[in-house]
């Protein structure tokens, strides 16, 4: 039963991939959409059933063993899978949100010449993502890890005729490769230390180890290397650069891969290994700091962007930053919670932007939009809910998850007040630029050029929006913190926490009174609201002249507008030197040095030949002379010894 369900779970996407892939030449968007969507739907259903099964078994863990994949000597990485609450919820998110996005794509890609190819890739992505989350050892996860990277490469470069897009895909893949290299080394270290790559065994052995204080303890190193991989996949500093470019792909792809699922893989991995992670406080510190920085940086950059998708991308970066921050401070469950909520509302917003872009005929610049609210009401409504969620207004989902993280950041022993401040500032910026986005896109007077006539999208696109809107609105109720539930009637339990507690590491946090907790919530909410109001006044009411302000802080503005020149820095300092260096290597080592040596040797021999020619000058008296010299030297030798 369970095995069959697993088989269905995995095979239906791969089957969809196969079917779609085989007739990749056809261009019947409808058919392709049906095949692709149904494939994912089936696996969603299977996932749900499995989830129920899992809840029924007492230790809430299902494992299934397919076949021996890699096994040499003591090293053993079977193709076997496990479903516990963590991976279960992930599965549901992936397949659920996935199927919604498939439906959306059916509408979105209706005019595309090669829809089959598109859905094939999408299904393949779902398959790999499932591998990633369900694998019961690091290797299977790694397979999915690289697989999703591959799919994102293919999907970003889906419109490959435009070399920029192809380049963006390549950038994504290679940046991820850098991360994967780190991940590999992390795996090596873990294996060399603990002798296994299976999650449960790792976590068990970990409990027997003592906590490491230094920087170069094996676990610390392993975790830092792992975190390099995470940074690659979850777009953290310094490897986040690929994510904004990844917006080159079709918008649903951005929704699915670059907002909802793939980018959260890193967070997932860290939560999986939390029992090992907590052994390395230094590593956690690094994680936390990087997360906070990323959160802030994303938010800051988001403030000044004009491209709607770019804004969403940077907000994704910053939200991921929050999750990582949460992991870093040991708020594993909140981080996971935020992962989930973020999956909903960010997917929602991306799809919304997709619908906007679709109706604006591929126009992405928000300066050319405005006043779309009345033209496309459903999109507007759903997007509005998403907005409320992301800026963290109660009772919408974003509020609960983000505040949990911030609270832990404040309270955790392995954290500091600074991180909390950074988090709050980030939250404020988020509120600001999301509101800005809303204002410029939907509210205010229309700046839409004459030839485009925006219109509401077809049902196939709006339906997913609505579903996601509901989720975005109420998913938060899965994890109501105690302080709130105490005051609420009936004390609704924190379902998520109860579910996940046994599977993540516990970390000690300061005792904090309820009042302080309320306090913190209040602060962050207030900050969010005030910033939102501010940007509303700027962009709709025009109370302040934004140009003037920009002038005043032009430097900061330039910095933020140009994404802190990070890409430029990378090109100038890392990529170009490598390329030039390799040119030099080839020229000076291969061509000039090694080959030169061989030529030199041959030349020596040849010149010997020519000299011999000149000695051999035909005059036999000279030959006789050579003989005489030979005799002399021969005799000298005889005497010499």
């Amino acid at each position, binding site marked *: 039963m369970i095995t069959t369900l697993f088989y269905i779970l995995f095979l239906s996407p791969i089957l969809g991939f196969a079917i779609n892939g085989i007739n990749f030449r056809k261009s019947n968007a409808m058919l392709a959409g049906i095949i692709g969507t149904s494939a994912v739907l089936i696996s969603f259903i299977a996932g749900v059933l499995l989830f129920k099964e899992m809840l029924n078994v007492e230790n809430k863990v299902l494992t299934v063993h397919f076949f021996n994949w890699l096994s040499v000597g003591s090293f053993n990485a079977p193709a076997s899978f496990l479903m516990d609450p963590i991976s279960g919820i992930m599965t549901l998110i992936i397949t659920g949100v996935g199927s919604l996005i498939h439906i959306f794509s059916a509408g979105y890609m209706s005019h595309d010449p090669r829809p089959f190819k598109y859905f094939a890739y999408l299904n393949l992505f779902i398959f790999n993502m499932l591998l990633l989350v369900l694998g019961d050892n690091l290797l299977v996860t790694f397979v999915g890890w690289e697989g999703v990277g591959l799919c994102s490469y293919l999907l970003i470069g889906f419109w490959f005729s435009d070399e920029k897009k192809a380049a963006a895909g390549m950038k994504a893949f290679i940046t991820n490769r850098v991360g994967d290299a780190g991940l590999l080394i992390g795996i090596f270290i873990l294996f060399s230390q603990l002798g296994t790559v299976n999650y449960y065994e790792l976590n068990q052995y970990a409990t027997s180890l003592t906590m490491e204080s230094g920087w170069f303890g094996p676990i610390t190193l392993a975790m830092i290397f792992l975190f390099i991989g995470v940074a690659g996949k979850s777009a953290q500093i310094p490897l986040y650069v690929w994510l904004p470019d990844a917006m080159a792909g079709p918008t649903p792809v951005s929704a699915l891969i670059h907002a909802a699922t793939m980018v959260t893989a890193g967070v997932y991995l860290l939560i999986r290994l939390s029992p090992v992670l907590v052994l390395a406080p230094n590593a956690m510190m690094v994680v936390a700091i990087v997360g906070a920085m990323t959160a802030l940086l994303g938010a800051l950059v988001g403030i000044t962007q004009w491209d709607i998708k770019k804004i969403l991308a940077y907000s994704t970066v910053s939200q991921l930053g929050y999750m990582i921050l949460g992991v870093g401070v040991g708020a594993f469950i909140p981080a996971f919670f935020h992962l989930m909520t973020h999956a909903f509302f960010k997917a929602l917003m991306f799809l919304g932007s997709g619908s906007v872009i679709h109706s604006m005929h591929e126009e992405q610049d928000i300066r050319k939009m405005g006043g779309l609210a009345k033209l496309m009401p459903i999109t507007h409504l759903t997007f509005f809910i998403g907005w409320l969620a992301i800026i963290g207004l109660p009772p919408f989902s974003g509020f609960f998850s983000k505040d949990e993280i911030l609270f832990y950041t404040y309270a955790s022993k392995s954290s500091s007040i600074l991180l909390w401040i950074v988090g709050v500032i980030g939250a404020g910026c988020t509120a600001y630029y999301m509101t800005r986005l809303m204002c410029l896109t939907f509210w205010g007077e229309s700046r839409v050029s004459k030839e485009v006539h925006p219109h509401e999208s077809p049902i196939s696109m709006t339906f997913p929006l609505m579903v996601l809107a509901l989720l975005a609105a109420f998913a938060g109720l899965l994890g109501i913190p105690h302080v709130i539930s105490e005051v609420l009637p009936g004390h609704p339990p924190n379902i998520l926490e109860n579910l996940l507690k046994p599977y993540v590491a516990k970390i000690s946090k300061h005792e904090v009174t309820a009042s302080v907790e309320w306090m913190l919530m209040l602060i962050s909410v207030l900050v969010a609201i005030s910033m939102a109001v501010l940007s509303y006044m700027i962009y709709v009411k025009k109370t302040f002249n934004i140009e003037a302000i920009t002038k005043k802080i032009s430097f900061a503005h330039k910095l933020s507008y140009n994404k802190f020149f990070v890409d430029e820095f990378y090109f100038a300092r890392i990529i170009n030197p490598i390329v030039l260096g390799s040119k030099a290597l080839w020229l000076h080592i291969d061509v000039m040095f090694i080959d030169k040596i061989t030529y030199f040797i041959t030349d020596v021999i040849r010149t010997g030949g020519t000299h011999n020619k000149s000695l051999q*000058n*035909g*005059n036999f*008296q000279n030959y*006789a002379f050579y003989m*005489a010299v030979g005799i002399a030297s021969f005799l000298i030798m005889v005497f010499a010894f």
Partner: protein
Amino acid sequence: MPSLESISQIGLNHFLYLSSVLFVIGLLTVLMRKNLIVILMGIELMLNAVNLSFIAFSSYAGDVHGQVIVFFVMTVAAAEAGVGLAIAVAIFKKFKEVEISFFQKLKG
């Protein structure tokens, strides 16, 4: 510094010195003269030196084999001279020339 005694006492080594001097002179003739015939003469000189040393050895050792060998050597030498001159004649008939500088076409 050889003592007077060793100079007045003519021993085997004197003969050997002589023969080696003769040999070297023959060698030099081969090396330095430009005329084929004279070069042949040089070879004859060398052979004479050989004979001399043979005889010297044989008589100082009181062993007659040396003389026999010398007998053979002479014959061979005569034969060589014959062949050499025959070749010389064959060439001369054609080219009216036995200068060795004439034989420098084959080289390299």
